[in-house]
């Protein structure tokens, strides 16, 4: 396995009084694409949000490039090189599409080299180009999803954290996003994502984590997929 970029050990997290994560352990190697699988409500989103530092009620260790992230304030996590695309997309309605796109500052070290230039982004998502002056939330659901991904690509993060990137997207677009992720991978980007669309996931991921009840219950590379179908069946009901 490549040199680890993100190491999570014994991570616990809470929403108020409800204990959601019960000791998550995972490692993401540099340049890897990892997919977390799991049924609705097992804590996938929570895992991503906790790693990102949005959920502050947490215990356990999160190391990014070897650096302990426990006390890093939220607005500094992006500086370390983490980029997040939330499940609900988070498009700003008072900003135009282009303003949305330009919003996140390029903050990570060396981000400028990794950052995807604007014309490349527009080439990738022509819808966005066409609607670039309309308010962000006037986009359709799928267009918003594209915008949310595109927005992060422009900042040149090291680790891209995606929460269900294909939800609500037309098959052509899903395909296109798959291609984008492959391109990014070639450029050395690391991706950690949660995905329900199993077929899509199996096409882009190098490795899977299987989650149940706030814990990782299995971890295997894509090559082992055929042997693992039974476990998957049990845990996911695929």
């Amino acid at each position: 396995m490549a040199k680890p970029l993100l190491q999570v050990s014994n991570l616990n997290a809470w929403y108020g009084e409800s204990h959601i994560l019960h000791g998550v352990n995972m490692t993401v190697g540099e340049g890897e694409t990892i997919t977390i699988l799991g049924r609705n409500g097992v804590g996938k989103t929570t895992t991503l949000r906790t790693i990102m530092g949005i959920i502050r009620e947490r215990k356990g260790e999160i190391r990014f490039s070897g650096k302990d992230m426990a006390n890093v304030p939220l607005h500094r996590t992006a500086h370390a090189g983490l980029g997040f695309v939330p499940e609900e997309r988070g498009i700003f309605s008072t900003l135009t599409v282009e303003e949305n796109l330009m919003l996140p500052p390029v903050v990570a070290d060396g981000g400028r080299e990794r950052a995807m230039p604007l014309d490349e982004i527009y080439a990738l998502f022509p819808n966005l180009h066409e609607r670039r002056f309309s308010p962000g939330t006037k986009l359709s659901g799928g267009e918003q999803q594209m915008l949310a991904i595109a927005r992060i690509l422009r900042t040149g993060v090291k680790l891209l954290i995606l929460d269900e990137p294909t939800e609500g997207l037309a098959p052509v677009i899903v395909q296109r996003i798959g291609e984008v992720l492959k391109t990014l991978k070639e450029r050395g980007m690391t991706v950690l994502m949660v995905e329900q669309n199993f077929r899509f996931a199996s096409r882009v991921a190098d490795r899977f984590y299987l989650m149940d009840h706030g814990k990782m219950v299995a971890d295997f590379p894509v090559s082992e997929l055929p042997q693992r179908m039974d476990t998957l069946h049990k845990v996911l009901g695929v």
Partner: protein
Amino acid sequence: MAVPAQDLHEEPRVVLSARGLSKSFGAFLAVRDVDLDIEHARVHALIGPNGAGKTTVFNLLTKFLQPTAGSITLLGTDITKTSPDKVARMGLVRSFQISAVFPHLTVLDNVRVALQRPNGLSTQFWLPTSALDRLNDRADELIETVGLKRERNAIAADLSYGRKRVLEIATTLALDPKVLLLDEPMAGMGQEDIGTVSNIIREVAKTRAVLMVEHNLSVVADICHQVTVLQRGEILAEGDYATVSKDERVRLAYMGTEDA
């Protein structure tokens, strides 16, 4: 099951139709000249690329948006100028693309809120809440239909995303709608729920018309009788799934090169 047996196998007939439906947002024409006929006892799918105008069509049909041009007829009545709550009372009920439940009510209460209206129990401020207990049987029936029995007394906010969607369907069914509009009912749902929900939709469609937007093509192939493909606000193709999926333009604009 929620559906009485004698109602099965009803004849299809048009219950909701739109003619020349158009909607522009400023200079942007989101929906142009769409004709749609939704039939009783049928599942009709509305598919198309993102931004094609599917949700907008839904908003127009349910009157959450006022069309720029065109007319809409529900059960023989022109509803082009009717308010959304009135349309809902006439039997046209929708679900939302982003999940819509009453978060701090229990699952049971969510369903009962929906049941209150058709049962004439919504404006009685002089009755105790226990008056609503007479809705419990029907509510439990619905909850069981969608498989939420275990979560019956849970607070809706505590449900996972997929379970919320299921609950939403239960509340929608509670109104016993004649026409059901579902906006991406499977979005964000795990495989196990997709199966359940497909079955529910198939089942309820035996006695009512269903129009759904869905990107999950296996579901569309599986349960939909009729498919309309929308692109850039216009109808690109229409027909059953087999026909539509062979259409080269549809493959190019929407389905991509893979198989469904």
